[in-house]
């Protein structure tokens, strides 16, 4: 080092005091921390602090625009005794589990179909992703019209083929409303599964299939014993993401049903929104939002037990 800079080395054989700060910031640990501190402070201020503040809110009786009073766990006790809260819990589980299964099975099927050679593959893949990239609220508006009580295209088809007249009220009947939400959620989320699983499929070496075929494995056996085990890590990660964001879904329900009819489609997020923003009860709302954490943790824990890619 000193040999390459003879003049400098002659004048200052040891590091001069003047440049110590410079040397200090050049140290790997110092440089790294100086880099990460600003974004970390940002995240602490706008994620960490609101999270803690949300817990504090949930322990208060806090009407909007007025000072709160500390009530301990009273809000959570009230949630526990609230039949709507339990309805919401059940709705959220039904919605999450049904939509996730549909997306997983449908996404895997679509990925397998697309894992063949065909013309316009890239164009078709790009088109298939559209539901995922178009702003959800805007595409849900189209679904709202598809499911409209009077002018539903589905009901028109049902009438046309004389299956039903006048056809069901898709968003007016509690069970059908939930079914509709699950379908729309599947429509939006399926491309994410399909494209990610397709990318996973493409990393599987063709040699493995060849070897399995030579050993006499049928198409089903190749899928069951080659494809699935190798795809498991990808399926796990995709499903985990999808479960978290489906469990905490807000937009679809807000646009299509607002939680109705008679709370049949309220999820934690929309119910918390109604209580906090509609009813002005910030404390109660915060407690409902926080109540989604334990069941969500439970689902993720159960999933990692069943699906975790293990070495065996």
């Amino acid at each position, binding site marked *: 080092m000193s040999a390459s800079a003879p003049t400098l080395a002659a004048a200052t054989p040891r590091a001069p005091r003047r440049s110590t700060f410079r040397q200090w910031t050049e140290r790997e640990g110092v440089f790294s921390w100086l880099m990460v501190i600003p974004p970390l402070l940002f995240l602490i201020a706008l994620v960490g602090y609101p999270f803690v503040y949300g817990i504090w809110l949930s322990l208060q009786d806090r009407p909007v625009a007025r000072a709160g009073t500390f009530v301990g766990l009273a809000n959570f006790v009230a949630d526990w005794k609230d039949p709507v809260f339990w309805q919401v819990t059940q709705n959220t589980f039904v919605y999450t589990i049904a939509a996730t299964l549909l997306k997983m099975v449908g996404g895997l099927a679509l990925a397998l179909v697309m894992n063949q050679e065909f013309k316009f593959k890239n164009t078709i893949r790009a088109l298939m992703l559209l539901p995922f990239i*178009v702003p959800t609220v*805007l595409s849900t508006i189209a679904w709202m019209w598809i499911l409209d009580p009077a002018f539903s295209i589905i009901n028109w088809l049902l009438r046309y083929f004389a299956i039903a007249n006048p056809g069901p009220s898709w968003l007016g009947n509690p069970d059908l409303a939930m079914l509709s939400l699950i379908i729309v959620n599947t429509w939006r989320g399926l491309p994410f599964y399909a494209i990610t699983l397709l990318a996973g499929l493409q990393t599987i070496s063709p040699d493995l299939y060849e070897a399995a075929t030579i050993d006499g494995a049928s198409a089903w056996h190749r899928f069951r014993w080659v494809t699935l085990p190798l795809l498991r890590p990808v399926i796990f990660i995709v499903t985990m993401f999808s479960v978290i964001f489906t469990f905490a879904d807000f937009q679809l329900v807000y646009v299509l049903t607002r939680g109705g009819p008679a709370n049949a489609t309220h999820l934690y997020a929309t119910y918390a929104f109604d209580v906090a923003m509609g009813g002005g009860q910030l404390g109660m709302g915060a407690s409902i939002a926080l109540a989604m954490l334990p069941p969500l943790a439970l689902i993720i824990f159960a999933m990692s037990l069943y699906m975790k890619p293990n070495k065996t």
Partner: protein
Amino acid sequence: MIVQRRGWTTRSLKLWLPLGGFMLFTLFPFYWMAITSLKPNSELYNRKIMPLIVYHPTLKHYVDLLTETNFLLWTWNTFLVAVVSTAISLVFGVMLAYPLARMRFAGAALISFAVAATYLVPQPLLFIPLADIINQLGLGDTLTSVILTYPTLLVPFCAWLLMGYFRSVPHELEDAARIDGATRLQTMFKVFLPLCIPGFISAGIFAFTLAQNEFLYALIFLTQTDVRTVPVGAISELVKGDVFYWGQLMAAALLGSVPVAIIYSFFVEHYVAGLTAGAVKQ
């Protein structure tokens, strides 16, 4: 001949039939959106006629949308917010990802974990306390409120995606720059980051579409028509009580989707790379 025909039938059954089914399911809502926006009200609300095609297409709903509502202003707001919050997120994302991917320092594992955890925090968990904080700061009904909060969703994502990309870049060039006497900052800006343009495009496109898509914070923080974004404006102002302006709603849905779709179409490969990076890369 027979072999050929058999091949064609199996191929139809194994490829084109299921693919066609999926495409119909995927694309029908967009078709429906487009033709509904072109129908005059007399066709829209007539249950007698076949609804799958337009008989007398009209641009009336588009004209009304652009002249009678603040749609253009909402579009500008959405675009501005998406661009600024994407830029902030990329800068912060690099500041997190570069040290985490390329350096060894005490606390790195903890920070990685914290960033991943932040990414997984669902938005509905934070909107009530954030609404209160935004009010106390006097930021309600300003674009600043969403420009500040969107990066909380985008930074962890950008950092995570960029970390993956940064790890795939070989060390030689940086080592050479360091040996030649470049400081760490110079090495990062002049040598390393220019190598990572594709990573920035992936992260940027993804963050941009997420920002365009955001609804919950915009719905709560932005209640005045002149600061609204397209999704909030459409759902709040084109539905008046029980009256749905279906033609205008569909025109808004279509026009609101077009900017995202165009940008996406230019960078599909980058988008797909970003989408699959986390799950597939080992």
